[in-house]
């Protein structure tokens, strides 16, 4: 049964990579990147069960957090043009 789930995740990874390469805007790529992060976490968990050692799920937690950090870093750059911006108000450039 884990084989079926693994295959499904691999198929979705392939489709998402296609979108990441095609995606006309940067944001399309980011959507794909975020979903690829999720798919990678699930793949890690399923492969753990598939090989009979599902103990490495801590890495999945790290991935989830890093995925959020990576996405937010790019987006913060986009909205404020600066990673060190304190946020708060919209830029009034």
């Amino acid at each position, binding site marked *: 049964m884990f*084989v079926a789930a*693994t295959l499904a995740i*691999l198929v979705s*990874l*392939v489709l998402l*990579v296609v979108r*990441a*390469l095609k995606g006309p805007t*940067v944001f399309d*790529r*980011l959507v*794909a*990147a975020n979903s*690829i*992060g999720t798919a*990678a976490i699930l*793949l*890690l968990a399923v*492969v753990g069960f*598939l*090989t009979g050692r599902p103990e*490495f799920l801590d*890495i999945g937690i*790290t*991935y989830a957090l*890093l*995925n959020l*950090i*990576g996405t937010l*870093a*790019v987006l913060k*750059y986009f909205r404020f*043009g*600066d*990673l060190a911006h304190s946020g708060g108000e919209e830029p009034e450039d």
Partner: protein
Amino acid sequence: METFINMVLLTLLAVITIGVVRLRNLFAVIILGGIYSFLMASVLIVLDAVDVAMTEASVGAGISTVLMLTVLYMTRVEEAKPVHSPMLPLFVAGVTGAVLVYGTWGLPAFGLADTPLNNHVGMTYMDLSIPDTGIPNVVTSVLASYRGFDTLGETTVVFTAGIGVLLLLRRGVSVARLRRKQQEEESKS
């Protein structure tokens, strides 16, 4: 099944690499770099290197992305069109690749246990780790105990790199500002 997952992920890595090479918008390249790191980390998990996968994900998708974005803020986003023809680099790369592919025929096949690599010191650590150090994670025990000086050298490298970055980016005695000031004075006079 493991081999199949491995092959699919590696193919995706290659496809993403093509995208990284071809795209000229550096933002898109950095985002693809993040995807590349996640896929690479998944490959490493399938290849049983869990510690390396964790480090690769945090360094590749985390720190590298943030560092590159910070630098990109100070420079231009769009890469200039190449002036030179890419034929010579393509030729060099192709020849290098061909020679290396020729070399792979002499390498042992993937996944075998009786290769030279898997019969020497690496596997000895597996037997020695628990009696010597009591740490079940062999990577940790080798990294911190058997090859502790190696790790010390590594931290020295990181320290040196940090000092190097600090010296490069120090604001006080910026050569660039002096130079620019000189140019301004010259243009005024």
